[in-house]
């Protein structure tokens, strides 16, 4: 099985593409650094006892006053920037992943039902996606977050903020998945195996879930990869605007917002390093998604 996979066209074209290999390595490094942050990070930025204001705003190691203890310098509270970035990447990746999974579940369900049922159900669902696609996703996420802020009691909202963000970003991104799945479902619905499943008396949900779904997943997963980068950017943007995660639980966007206040006093490293981290990670995910799209689409070869 493994040998057959390693011998496949897919792996061959992966090995032949330096862009794909490099971006995969970068993404892997990000994931390892983020997931392993509690063990790999040189300091724990959340351990208040280890923070010392004496260490605040130290420059990175390659500048005149930098020390090897803080490779990328420290912020105003003496938090190690490198460690904060590793923990922040963990939160950013987690929210991005959860939001895309949420969007996938909603989008696939709507797409399958619309494509399989057809008729009025299809028309209604597609009208909803059309209307939502008219609005930029970041605007929808902002408004959903604002409403959540008003509905939930304050301290409860602060504790639930991660899930609020996952919901807001996921809700803003599902229509694309729904459209793609609906398109492929319309094609699959006419195939003989669906006819056969109907003849032996399977229920509609069963046909949709276990027969059509596996055949429409391919294109959706490519879009999901490309959307993962965008979802991470959505979260960073919301946090930067001050409606995302609080400074006590900083994602990359929060770190950039905190650092932005020190830009004018010359402490550029507090904001630029998290920014570079975010850009490199999203760029690699996008490149990987682009390559995946080309590799899985034989017409483009």
């Amino acid at each position: 099985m493994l040998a057959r996979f390693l011998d496949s066209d897919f792996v061959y074209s992966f090995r032949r593409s330096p862009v794909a290999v490099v971006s995969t390595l970068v993404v892997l490094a990000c994931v390892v650094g983020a997931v392993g942050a509690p063990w790999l990070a040189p300091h724990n930025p959340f351990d208040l006892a280890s923070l010392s204001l004496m260490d605040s705003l130290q420059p990175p190691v390659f500048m005149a006053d930098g020390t090897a203890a803080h490779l990328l310098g420290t912020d105003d509270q003496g938090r190690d920037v490198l460690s904060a970035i590793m923990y922040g990447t963990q939160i950013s990746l987690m929210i991005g992943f959860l939001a895309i999974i949420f969007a996938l579940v909603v989008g696939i369900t709507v797409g399958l039902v619309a494509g399989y049922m057809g008729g009025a159900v299809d028309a209604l669902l597609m009208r909803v996606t059309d209307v939502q696609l008219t609005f930029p996703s970041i605007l929808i996420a902002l408004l959903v977050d604002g409403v959540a802020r008003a509905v939930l009691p304050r301290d409860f909202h602060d504790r639930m903020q991660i899930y609020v963000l996952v919901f807001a970003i996921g809700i803003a991104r599902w229509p694309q998945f729904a459209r793609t799945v609906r398109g492929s479902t319309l094609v699959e619905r006419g195939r003989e195996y669906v006819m056969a499943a109907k003849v032996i008396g399977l229920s509609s949900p069963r046909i949709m879930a276990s027969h059509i779904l596996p055949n429409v997943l391919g294109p959706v997963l490519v879009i999901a990869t490309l959307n993962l980068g965008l979802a991470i950017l959505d979260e960073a943007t919301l946090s930067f605007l001050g409606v995302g995660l609080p400074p006590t639980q900083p994602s990359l966007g929060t770190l950039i917002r905190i650092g932005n206040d020190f830009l004018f006093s010359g402490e550029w490293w507090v904001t630029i390093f998290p920014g570079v981290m975010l850009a490199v990670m999203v760029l690699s995910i996008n490149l990987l998604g682009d390559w995946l799209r080309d590799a899985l689409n034989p017409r483009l070869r």
Partner: protein
Amino acid sequence: MFAFILSRILQAVPVLLVVGFISYAMFAFVGDPVTIMLGQDYTEAQRVALVHQLGLDQPFFVQYAKYMWAALHGNFGISYRMARPVGDLIAERLPATLELSLTSAVLAVLVGVPMGVYTGIRRNAVVSRIFMIFSLLGVSLPTFLIGILLILLFSVVLGWLPSFGRGDVVHFAHWSTGFLTPLGLKSLILPAITLGLFQMTLIMRLVRAEMLEVLRSDYIKFARARGLSQRAINFGHALKNTLVPVITIIGLQIGGLVAFSIVTETVFQWPGMGLLLVQSIGVADIPVMAAYLQLIAVVFVCINLIVDLLYYAVDPRLRMDRGRATGGH
């Protein structure tokens, strides 16, 4: 033609009604403005008076109808945070956002289209490759990071351009413009680049892809065979035929510009509607959010209408097909 416009407008009405209902629902069911506005100490009489003043003691549908009717007249209620009419707040900040978005859109088109044409015609030139790498950065860097980097370079390190605000503005009746003062223009440069960069790279990539597609087609080969000049082929025949998708994307992106101005305005503390929205979301100021949502819906519907009309102007085939083929583009 007339029937086409009419059907488009009729399609837009339900969208606006639904958005209006959502924003009214936000208004009606979210939060308790009375406690927020009264603060800590108040008497029962004060509370009842305020509830009456805000019209919250009336039935749901009366409130909805009143809300929509008032919204049609530009009256969106009173901001919880500023205790001032939302309509006034938005009217004050509309010019700043519109000037910024418009400048960015013009910038994106004027730079993006020529770059796309160039990279399409000379796809292997060194300059084209540099443009393509640059465009990849434009797509992957988040807007706020581009703004921060520009501030770092041009305001902090070089000290050439202001990093926040609109500079000096000149007032005409209800409009304030930054186009007429040197400081106003200088203040506009960084935010406009920040906001327009993503759209610029998007337009460039799109024009390039379309040019590559069109240059392969038979009628371009025929034009070459006829001995037309390169210039006539590239601009008269090829570029013209790439315009339909380009116009669609530009139209949709202008809506995106208005939305992304939220981020740019926050980075540069630009006193526009986006900054107002972000400040309002932070304190759950529902009337401002609801009004913003409705206004944006109107803007998007208008843009879509204009895009549809431009199709007509650009693509003669649509004029003939409309009668037979139903069901949009």
